[in-house]
């Protein structure tokens, strides 16, 4: 959970960027809304009792994003070529494998990255088990022990 003052400032900046109109009424109501949201969210968290801090190595995440974009472009290009190929060279495969991440945040990032990459969709996600539908057999076989798996594990705070 982010500290409340930080959350208020972040929400207020978000409001200002979206509004883009420096009228006193709008700025003040934005500030009021930010404070109200943080207060209400704090109450919700107390009720749910689920303070699950996201622990990630942010420096690794910064280098992970460009890498993921590159992977997405390559995979999208591959799927595009298959779509345009008159013979439609696909071999849909369901594959199960064991991701090496331990924390929820890293598992979520890994599963979302798999789905975001065209050609693979994570269907079931549990600790130690991913069920992935892949457009091609090669794509399915390259999932276990992939570079994406390694990079997602590096995101975890050791």
């Amino acid at each position: 959970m982010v500290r409340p003052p930080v959350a208020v400032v972040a929400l207020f900046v978000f409001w200002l960027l979206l509004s883009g109109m420096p009228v006193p009424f709008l700025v003040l109501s934005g500030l009021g809304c930010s404070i109200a949201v943080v207060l209400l969210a704090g109450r919700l968290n107390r009720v749910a009792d689920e303070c699950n801090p996201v622990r990630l190595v942010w420096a690794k995440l910064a280098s992970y994003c460009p890498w993921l974009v590159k992977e997405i472009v390559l995979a999208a290009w591959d799927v595009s070529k298959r779509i345009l190929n008159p013979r439609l060279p696909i071999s849909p495969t369901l594959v199960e494998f064991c991701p090496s991440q331990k924390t929820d945040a890293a598992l979520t990032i890994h599963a979302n990255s798999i789905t975001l990459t065209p050609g693979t969709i994570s269907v079931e996600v549990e600790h130690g088990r991913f069920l992935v539908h892949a457009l091609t057999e090669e794509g399915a076989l390259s999932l276990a022990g992939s570079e994406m798996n390694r990079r997602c594990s590096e995101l975890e705070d050791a």
Partner: protein
Amino acid sequence: MEILTTVLSWVFLACGAFFCLLGGIGLIRMPDFYTRMHAASVTETLGAGSLLLGLMLHAGFSLVTVKLAMIGVLIFLASPTASHALAKAALLSGLRPLLGKELSSREVPPSKR
């Protein structure tokens, strides 16, 4: 400089339009639900990504660009979550995916659609 960004933005817009169209073609050509989702993900990654990038270059340094970047972040967080929910719901409700290599060589007969 002005001309360069204009040309670049049009290149990205054209690429985005092309990949959106390609995703649509794939959506029609693919044999079953799950493979169609793969085709759709081309649209929501490369298609939407290039369109947003083109629009950002078009808008230059302004609040519009910031908002476009926010839309991009939203798409890249929400679309895989939605795809995952869709695929999981389909599998849980008993829709079996077409599997195997036999699909690769021939079109699926109309009776199986």
